[in-house]
């Protein structure tokens, strides 16, 4: 019950007027970020990160993580009312959410979506509360080889479990690592891949990359796809909320199942997107009238939203306990930690108790506050979308430029952001995933350091990664994950069963 004590302590840290205010501001900004096309979790947080440079770390993380919660809530609004997913993880919500809105049940669908998000999130936060300290204690024994093995596991999981073609995931990873390595080498002090350029000496800041890859490219895509927001009316009356809430206990199994899927996929870097599709597909398969899915069933809204929100929240678990983010936004938050002068990793739980437990407490409060705010302000945010895109687009671009410049006060970074925007546009359209690249950019230096520290004094032998039980297990697990598609096929062959698992409905961009 040590965790509960620490949690109470965290609430103590959190419950100041200043922090509560930041929380409200963060949630409102987050919903806005979630609603607007072109602004998503990762780049929304990245743009606002410079504002927190002068804050104390606890207030800063409260603000930024609340933007994240808000964005998770906000994604559902556009999916249900406009049939346009504000975020990739709310694509599955459109399948049943929009038909419900067309039938005039927009308020029920929204209430269900927000409540489901809340439920999934709280499930994941509870997991973090009790599991993260334990994992962190365990990870305190880790040396460089163990850490490298965990990084390896993260990246191998991406390759093995990703939905995209393997070679495209590997390209994304390798490119991220290479970009992270540009600049001064931390161990030998040598310059790498700078080609005599002074600007490249600083290396590529991953925040600039995130803003370009996710922000600018989204604007280009939105423009190309000719977005027009013709949506359903949004008004939520309290009586409807009550009525919807009363029906929810009937779907307890769906909620629990989706939470479990979300927690699992969030911790492994499968991410919220995969979780939402999986939650939806499983709910459809196990439901008594699965045939009616896609025609406006409330379960079809509950399942993906619960899973997406649980995954989005659970992605913070490995970030807190091991210093390895489980999602793009978690990666940006991790970058924030480093900017504020905190060393991510298991030591956080020992050295920065206020920070860690303040953050965990803010996850509880932030989600409660988020639920209330989002229910109350849906009409307001829905009306934001009726503003012409020609007004929103330049504003988002200006915000992106501000965010990119503020990272290092460098004009070059704004150009770099534009370049990354083009890269992001091309990659998204050719099916090269961006999340592995973001993660590799953030973790590149750390992974390399861990590798080289483990290798000191060895002449090229990789035996160190099997030198004891712990590191051996993790490394082997990483290889299993890497070759998972092959192993899965082999198992199926042995069983001799030809039934294939239906793949999650992919969102085709082209």
């Amino acid at each position, binding site marked *: 019950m040590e965790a509960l004590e620490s949690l109470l302590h965290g609430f103590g840290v959190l419950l100041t007027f200043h922090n509560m205010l930041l929380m409200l501001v963060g949630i409102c900004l987050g919903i806005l970020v979630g609603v607007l096309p072109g602004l998503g979790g990762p780049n929304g947080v990245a743009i606002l990160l410079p*504002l927190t440079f002068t804050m104390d770390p606890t207030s800063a993380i409260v603000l930024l993580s609340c933007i994240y919660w808000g964005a998770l809530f906000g994604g559902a609004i556009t999916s249900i009312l406009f049939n346009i997913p504000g975020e990739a993880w709310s694509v599955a919500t459109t399948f049943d959410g929009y038909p419900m809105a067309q039938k005039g049940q927009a308020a029920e669908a929204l209430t269900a979506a927000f409540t489901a998000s809340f439920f999934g999130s709280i499930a994941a936060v509870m997991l973090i509360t009790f599991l993260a300290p334990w994992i962190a204690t365990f990870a305190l024994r880790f040396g460089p080889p163990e850490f490298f093995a965990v990084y390896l596991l993260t990246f191998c999981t991406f390759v093995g479990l990703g939905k995209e073609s393997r070679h495209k995931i590997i390209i994304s990873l390798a490119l991220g690592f*290479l970009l992270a390595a540009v600049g001064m080498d931390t*161990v030998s002090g040598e310059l790498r891949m700078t*080609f005599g350029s002074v600007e490249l000496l600083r290396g590529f800041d991953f925040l600039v990359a995130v803003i370009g890859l996710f922000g600018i490219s989204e604007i280009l895509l939105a423009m*190309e796809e000719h977005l027009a927001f013709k949506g359903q009316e949004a008004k939520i009356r309290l009586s409807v909320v009550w009525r919807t809430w009363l029906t929810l206990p009937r779907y307890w199994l769906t909620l629990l199942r989706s939470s479990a899927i979300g927690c699992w996929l969030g911790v492994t870097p499968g991410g919220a997107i995969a979780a939402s599709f999986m939650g939806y597909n499983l709910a459809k398969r196990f439901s008594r009238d699965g045939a009616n899915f896609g025609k406006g069933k409330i379960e079809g809204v509950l399942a993906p939203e619960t899973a997406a929100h649980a995954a989005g929240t659970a992605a913070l678990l490995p970030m807190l306990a091991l210093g390895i983010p489980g999602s793009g936004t978690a990666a940006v938050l991790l970058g924030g930690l480093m900017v504020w002068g905190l060393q991510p990793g298991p030591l956080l739980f020992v050295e920065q108790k206020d920070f860690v437990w303040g953050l965990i407490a803010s996850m509880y409060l932030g989600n409660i506050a988020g639920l209330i705010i989002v229910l109350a302000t849906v009409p307001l945010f829905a009306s934001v979308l009726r503003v*012409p895109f020609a007004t929103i687009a330049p504003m988002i671009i*200006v915000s992106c430029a501000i965010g990119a410049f*503020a990272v290092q006060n460098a*004009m070059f970074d704004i150009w770099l952001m534009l370049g990354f925007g083009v890269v992001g546009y091309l990659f998204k*359209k050719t099916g090269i995933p961006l999340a592995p690249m973001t993660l590799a950019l953030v973790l590149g230096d750390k992974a390399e350091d861990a590798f080289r520290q483990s290798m000191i004094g060895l002449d090229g032998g990789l035996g160190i990664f099997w030198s004891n039980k712990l590191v051996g297990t993790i490394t082997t697990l990483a290889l299993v994950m890497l070759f998972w598609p092959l192993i899965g096929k082999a198992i199926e062959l042995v069983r001799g069963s030809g039934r294939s698992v239906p793949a999650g409905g992919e969102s085709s961009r082209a």
Partner: protein
Amino acid sequence: MSDGPHADVDPALVSTRSVELAVMALLFCLSIFLGWDNWRIGAGWAPDGPQAGYFPFYLSVLLGGSSLWGIVAALRSEELREEIFVGCSAFGRVLRVFLPTIGFVFLVQLIGLYVASFIFIAAFMVFVGKLKLWKSLLTGFVFSALMFYVFDVQFNVLMPKGPLEAAFGF
């Protein structure tokens, strides 16, 4: 966003296969280039462990290998040949936002971020969005002023400035 033709009847500008081939080829060249640079600074083993170029060199090899794989996969795929990467009018819309953005970044360099963003937003609304002039000017002004207040005044995050801000003593 004024033009009529929808993406369905939009004539294809380029197929997904061509773009994918081009992207993969570029990545392959990049991997050779980076691999060579890392080989130059040493990609082997020093007595105290791997040299500076070791890690990035093998990543370049990985990148090169996967992009070659990508080229082969794209060449062999029949569906990609049929798939439209972007239509003509869709690409026109992309340029209509991308070219002004380049202009905006140039302006930032010349006259500072806030004035540039005022011009960018107002001009974009008028010429691309075909919105009313007064609305556009007002929106541009309010947004730029708000950004200035939040970032420069409230949070002390300094943006590039030009002659106008200097005239006001910032």
